[in-house]
């Protein structure tokens, strides 16, 4: 590759941290990036993707916690050993996963943009550069007066890209820039990155989502355990991914276990900081759910999907409408509700109490609600562990000693051991990497069949849930905009939002 601008040779990062000294986070990485190239970098979590990003950006403090060796050459100049602050602008910039947190919360985005311009551009061209960057990303000027918390995640991420555009770096490292965003925002961000690429910057996109890479990138690199294992061009139309999962048997469609009628809920007064407290989060949701059925709830972030889940399990009060459980039960007690519906959270690492062992975690709901005695509880726990495909070796482990997939399985076991009528899974796989994600979905489907539970799958990503669902419910701004058989909705989406979601999904 003669026209490469970034040459990485033998890049190695070794931990100096006590207890893990000598462990290599990056092991002799070699690759190069050509000007204007769009490179995708994927790999399981912990494979060293983010470390590579930090190393390229000069944000690893050489000598303190880790030592960095090898060479990073940009346009023939050695970058290694130069902290980010001492580099001449315009070389490598970076954007990161959580776009709202990535901007200084107490300053307007305009002032942050201008600060970057001041540092890297001559006095005369600052204003015009900022203007042109904004307009090329189709961001309105009014955003400049706002604070990050007043913007959506997608807007924030595009502001960050705009910052990069102002200084037009040779290379932009984008570390999971879209994984916290819904499908629609994701698409806007990827388009913004592409605009930047068209202006001449090379882009290294780090993502666990191989479909995303397949759709947008010229070249795909895969890392595993600190090594670069795959480095190849992406051929048109290739969608990397594992085996397809089986569609579950359709529900029998009789007697609803859950009936929602015009459910209304308001944002918590002390809740999110977006200034919308007291406003409606759910503006009249009506649907029914039969035993054994799988319902996919889809919509952009902020549409009320999660609030719906929280209302159903009693974490959030409903301010209007009716929710009937298994017939006529309208105001279940804490215990009754626990046996009606259970929720599996998005982030498995955070949904398990860190100071409890696996044994205690799974035993807790059983001891509370069932007649299982303390002597039998161990067998019961073993039974449920086996059902989620884990062995009893994990009995005395703490959550942080488990992998993400294991954590999610424990969380599922905890939810289903009460054998609830309805299992709700809020983005159950978004935080998992590709392989674990599919295994988890398979597990959910399998358990649902075994126990004849109704399953509500919540996601912003149409494709990940529709494959296992019987029906789809599309939400927008607290309302149901489309509800129907999965196949029917996918084939003929009636609402523009559904169409947009579908379009974003297929690229």
């Amino acid at each position: 590759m003669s026209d490469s601008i970034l040459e990485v040779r033998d890049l190695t990062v070794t931990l100096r941290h006590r207890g893990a000294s000598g462990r290599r986070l990056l092991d002799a990485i070699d690759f190069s990036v050509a000007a204007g190239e769009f490179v995708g970098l994927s790999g399981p979590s912990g494979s060293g993707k983010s470390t590579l990003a930090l190393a390229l950006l000069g944000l690893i403090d050489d000598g303190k916690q880790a030592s960095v060796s090898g060479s990073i050459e940009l346009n023939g100049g050695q970058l290694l050993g130069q902290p980010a602050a001492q580099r001449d602008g315009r070389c490598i910039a970076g954007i990161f996963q959580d776009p709202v947190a990535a901007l200084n919360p107490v300053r307007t985005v305009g002032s942050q943009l201008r600060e970057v311009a001041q540092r890297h551009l001559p006095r005369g061209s600052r204003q015009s550069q900022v203007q042109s960057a904004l307009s090329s990303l189709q961001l309105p000027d009014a955003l400049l007066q706002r604070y990050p918390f007043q913007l959506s995640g997608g807007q924030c991420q595009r502001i960050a890209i705009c910052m990069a555009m102002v200084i037009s770096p040779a290379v932009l490292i984008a570390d999971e820039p879209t994984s916290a965003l819904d499908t629609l925002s994701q698409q806007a961000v990827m388009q913004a990155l592409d605009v930047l690429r068209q202006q001449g910057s090379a882009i290294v996109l780090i993502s666990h989502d191989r479909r995303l890479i397949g759709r947008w990138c010229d070249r795909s690199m895969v890392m595993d355990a600190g090594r670069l294992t795959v480095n190849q061009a992406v051929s048109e139309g290739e969608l990397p991914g594992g085996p397809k999962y089986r569609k579950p048997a359709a529900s029998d469609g009789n007697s609803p276990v859950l009936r929602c009628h015009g459910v209304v809920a308001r944002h918590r007064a002390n809740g999110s900081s977006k200034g919308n407290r007291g406003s409606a989060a759910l503006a009249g949701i009506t649907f029914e759910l039969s035993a054994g059925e799988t319902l996919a709830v889809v919509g952009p972030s902020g549409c009320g999907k999660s609030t719906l889940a929280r209302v159903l399990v009693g974490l959030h009060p409903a301010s209007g409408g009716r929710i009937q459980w298994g017939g006529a039960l309208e105001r279940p007690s804490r215990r009754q509700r626990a046996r009606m519906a259970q929720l599996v959270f998005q982030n498995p690492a955070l949904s398990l109490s860190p100071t409890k062992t696996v044994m205690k975690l799974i035993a807790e709901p059983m001891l509370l609600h069932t007649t299982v005695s303390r002597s039998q509880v161990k067998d019961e726990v073993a039974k449920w562990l086996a059902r989620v495909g884990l062995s009893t070796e994990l009995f005395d482990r703490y959550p942080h000693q488990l992998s993400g997939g294991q954590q999610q399985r424990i969380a599922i076991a905890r939810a289903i051991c009460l054998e609830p009528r309805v299992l709700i899974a809020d983005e159950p796989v978004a935080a998992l990497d590709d392989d674990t994600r599919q295994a988890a979905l398979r597990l959910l489907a399998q358990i649902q069949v075994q126990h004849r539970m109704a399953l509500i799958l919540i996601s912003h990503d149409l494709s990940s849930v529709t494959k296992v669902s019987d029906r789809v419910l599309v939400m927008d701004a607290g309302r149901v905009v489309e509800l129907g058989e999965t196949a029917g909705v996918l084939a003929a989406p009636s609402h523009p939002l559904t169409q947009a979601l579908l379009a974003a999904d297929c690229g």
Partner: protein
Amino acid sequence: MSRWAAQLCWSILGTYVAIAVGVWCGLWGQNYDLAGGPKWGGISSDYWLGTNLIGQDIFARSLTSVATALQTGLMVGGLATMAGALAGACAGYWRGRWPDRILLWLMGVIDAIPFVLLAAAIAYALGAQFIAVALAMILTLWVPVARLVRAETQKLRTMPYVESAQIIGVSPVLIILRHILPNTWHLLMAQGLLVMVAALKAEVVLSFLGIGSQASVSWGVMIAESTQEVASGRFNNFLAASIPLFGLVFVLGSLADFFQSRRAGDSRASGPMQA
């Protein structure tokens, strides 16, 4: 703080505890109050650190003071931390509701009254006794603990694992006891140690003002005695009290730091690479 330094701190603390246990078991430091020696006697084989004005053995007094300090520290530290943890967890869990309002109001009231004044007032109200001073300290020192635990509880309350416990049907009290408080463990240890530090330092000030622990001897009492002696160049009493006091406070403070940094490390899930 390195593990090595932490181990050093633990072993120093262990030495203090061993000395205190010796005092409690009657092995040494028993005759701290006998006025049998010479006035301001120097260092001798009978009196390793000399004697004070009325001829008491300064070494024995310093040893007994270790026990007094640990007694005061453990009692005040333990009770204030427990009270603060419970109150803070309740206030944080029911944020904005009446338990929170009442507790916030109470904390505000206690904060509004300067510590020394409040301590003196309680000590006077109950008659100048040790229990009064300890109570005064507990009554004021639970507040900062409660504020921190309240803030932490608010954070934990939105954690999926707490919500998951709610969904499973665990009662609020059990959630606080099983899922919230155990996860503030490092915070509580750090706060407990800091409360002990505050208690030990407050004891010196209160003794100096004549309202300290009255039943026995303490470093505060010794320092108060020595205020008059230092001017004339007699440092035995002053040093025999202030050095071990400094040592204990330093060790406790360092260990508090250690716990706090452990906690900070915990909350950063993605390891040491973060800047």
